[in-house]
């Protein structure tokens, strides 16, 4: 049940891994689409918190390239619907997330990413 909305907030937290640790790269993903309720106010409020480049990249990695490379000036309904779909309806069921810096692999199994670290990786 990782959605791209939380993926977009997630950075690597291994000890000493402080730069270039975002976004985690998605690998071998299996996705599932589950409909979610459309909430326009939430989306409008959330856009400033998103790292847009990372979101577009992650969306490409799961095989969705409907998002524009830049946030459009006008937030029309069609764009918000598309964003809603990408952020909240694409669930990553299986696969893994890899830190671009330290190459730590966070496996995702049955929708739950395993974020546990080994003893020597704890900061």
């Amino acid at each position, binding site marked *: *049940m990782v959605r791209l909305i939380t993926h977009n907030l997630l950075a690597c937290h291994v000890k000493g891994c402080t730069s270039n640790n975002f976004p985690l790269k998605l690998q071998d993903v299996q996705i599932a689409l589950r409909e979610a309720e459309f909430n326009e106010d*939430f989306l409008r409020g959330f856009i400033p918190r998103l790292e847009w480049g990372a979101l577009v990249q992650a969306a490409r990695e799961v095989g969705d390239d409907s998002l524009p490379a830049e946030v459009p000036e006008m937030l029309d309904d069609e764009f918000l619907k598309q964003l809603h779909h990408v952020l909240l309806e694409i669930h990553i069921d299986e696969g893994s997330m890899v830190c671009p810096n330290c190459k730590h692999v966070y496996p995702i199994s049955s929708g*739950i*990413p395993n974020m546990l*670290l080994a003893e020597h990786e704890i*900061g």
Partner: protein
Amino acid sequence: MSRPELQAPPEIYYGDSEAIKYTNNTRIQQIQAEMTYRALELLNLPPDEPAFLLDIGCGSGLSGEILDEEGYLWTGVDIAPSMLEVALEREVEGDLFLQDIGQGFGFRPGSFDGAISPRPSSISVIQWLLNAETSHPTSSPPHRLTRFFTALHSALRNPSRAVLQFYPTSDDQVQLITSIAQKAGFGGGVVVDYPNSNKARKVYLCLFVGGGGAAQVPQGLDGEAAEEAGARAKFEKRRQREVRKERSGKKKAAKGKEWILKKKDLYRRRGKEDVPRDSKYTGRKRKTVF
């Protein structure tokens, strides 16, 4: 019974059977619901604004269901895989993560509008942190608490709040937890609901991010616990009334032979049909069959 955090680490304590037992317990469900509402109240989120919350130790998603109902989007972290599995089966809306909060977490700064951790049944997330599982320096309680609070502080938006429930066993524990939270940059303090009730007493750690020190720690609820009336078993009042009646001696004695004969006589005089004959068996107890 000794406290669960003294028995085994959470991911072992909440094995498959404990996870299902816990989730299906209606008493726990009810307490969890009450606590979640109270925690949301303490969070004091701006009304009519959809918020993105972090549920720490989300477990099987009992509190998450309430958040869903209230229209919040949320992300849950927990260390017990069995609990998360139950949460998956229950199809909660939030995203779930298998994570040890004592290791810190990697959410980007300003990700969440608030964090809650309403935990029933004498175990809370912070308390699991107070137990060192190994002798490795990174698993000493102050170390783990520091990492947790620092990570939490950075993951929250400015201004926002975190409401974590806990069941302190001693004042030293409260002191340790609050001092570490303050070092991590949090303001706020401890809120105690129903301080005079043994049963209903609840302790919340109410932490503020930002706010310039103007924010007041909310008042704890006081007086008689309101939940008591609703939490009673059904028909308890009726049972109590009967007990009282019995004690006061108003209840009539069992109906004896005399009373039966009198009644039968009355029926006959009134001309009622099928009144049984009087005999030596009238008003006698039946033999016990076995």
